[in-house]
């Protein structure tokens, strides 16, 4: 009995002493600056900054590997100010942005060319004749982006992915995931025209594929007084820096593929529409 107590306590004390000595001898200095910066960052580890999560960005800032404090788009200007103060760097403005899916190919607009019964993944479905829809450029709607979104901002509405701009933190995770490259960042609080289509087929072909596809007719280019719209490869593209959101292109568009939206003001209901 006494021996048992002695043996266990001696082993315990030896182990404790070993650990105590080891923790002093082999202490690794903790980077306090990085810890503080880490506390200010949102902590979603979404990778919008391009580093390996919030810890990676905090470490890079504190070690001086980067001096850019505006990389955290989820945190916005506020976080930029705070981390700039800690790191002794200059703060910058981050214009709030949100992601948009540039496709209107829902079941009403776009037809399907095959019945797909394989793995429910956009990446897989793309490899089979470019997806089940007639249009090989459009959203497949199996929701690879939903899986990628760390903020739960995306859902599928009638076969097309839709992003809730108020939940979106512009981390670009969906942009990297979408096999069709359909997702793009847009200013959150400014009304801008945007072309909700990336179809590069010629007009006649596009018309057969989707009722809302851009046919490259150049009417928007002529209607725009600011030179903000350009047509390349039979598909229009808006320069958000030049666009003032007047809506003349929308009036001119025969298929209504171009629309003026202010993401921040969209009611949740109408997000499902665009």
């Amino acid at each position, binding site marked *: 009995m006494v*021996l*048992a107590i002695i*043996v*266990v306590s001696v*082993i*315990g004390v030896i*182990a*404790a002493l*070993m*650990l105590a000595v*080891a*923790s002093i001898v*082999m*202490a*690794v200095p903790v980077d306090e600056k990085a810890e503080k910066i880490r506390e200010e960052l949102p902590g979603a580890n979404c990778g919008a900054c391009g580093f390996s999560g919030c810890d990676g960005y905090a470490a890079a800032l504190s070690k001086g590997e980067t001096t850019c404090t505006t990389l955290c788009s989820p945190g916005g200007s506020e976080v930029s100010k705070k981390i700039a103060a800690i790191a002794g760097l200059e703060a910058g403005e981050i214009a709030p942005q949100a992601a948009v899916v540039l496709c209107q190919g829902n079941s009403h607009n776009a037809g399907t060319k095959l019945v797909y019964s394989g*793995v*429910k*993944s956009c990446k897989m479905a793309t490899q089979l004749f470019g997806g089940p829809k007639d249009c090989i450029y459009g959203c497949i709607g199996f929701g690879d982006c939903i899986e990628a979104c760390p903020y739960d901002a995306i859902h599928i509405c009638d076969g097309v992915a839709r992003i809730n701009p108020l939940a979106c933190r512009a981390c670009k995770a969906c942009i990297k995931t979408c096999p069709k490259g359909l997702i793009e960042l847009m200013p959150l609080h400014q009304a801008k025209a945007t072309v909700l289509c990336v179809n590069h087929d010629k007009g006649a072909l596009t018309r057969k594929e989707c009722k809302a596809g851009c046919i490259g007719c150049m009417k928007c280019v002529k209607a725009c007084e600011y030179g903000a719209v350009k047509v390349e490869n039979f598909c229009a593209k808006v320069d958000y820096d030049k666009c003032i959101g007047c809506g003349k292109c929308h009036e001119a568009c025969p298929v209504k593929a171009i629309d003026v939206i202010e993401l921040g003001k969209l009611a949740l209901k109408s997000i499902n529409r665009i």
Partner: protein
Amino acid sequence: MTMTKELLAILMTAILTENFLLSKFLGICPFLGVSKKLNTASGMSMAVIFVMLLATAVTYPINNFILVPNGLAYLQTIVFILVIAALVQLVEITLKKYIPSLYSALGIYLPLITTNCAVLGVVILNVDNGYNFAYSMVNTLGAGLGFLVAMVMFAGVRERLESCDVPKFMQGLPITLVAASLTSISFLGFAGIVDGIFG
């Protein structure tokens, strides 16, 4: 020659017929917890092999030179837990200081397996089977490799499950447990194989 043969038999038995996860059902927590992805599963298994070998190497002398001579063999469980926990902590501190890359690879898993029943199980089974040091180490290595095999296999199964259309009532843990039981049954196929080869 017979010794090599016996060692090989012990190794193969520990990997296949007496697999820790699939026949002995030890260490089910990491089996279900970190088997979602192949790389976490193999990382965890590597950490388990490492800790198991270390634990056996340290507990064998403690058992044979301190506990047994003093008639304290009944203290095995508590002493082994104490020693293994302290040891893993020590290893963690050392790795953090000297091999940061290995620390960041194993780091998350090391504390997880401090008192994992698979680790404690293997050292106690070594004692119960009356193995000497070499046999103990080989048995431990086999147990660890068996853990790795089962984890990697099951991670593959689960990665395939991810893309399956599972009925709603079976989604998540239920289908995982069904898959685990099927994987376990598949290992029954190895019964007798070791006796057949080395017997």
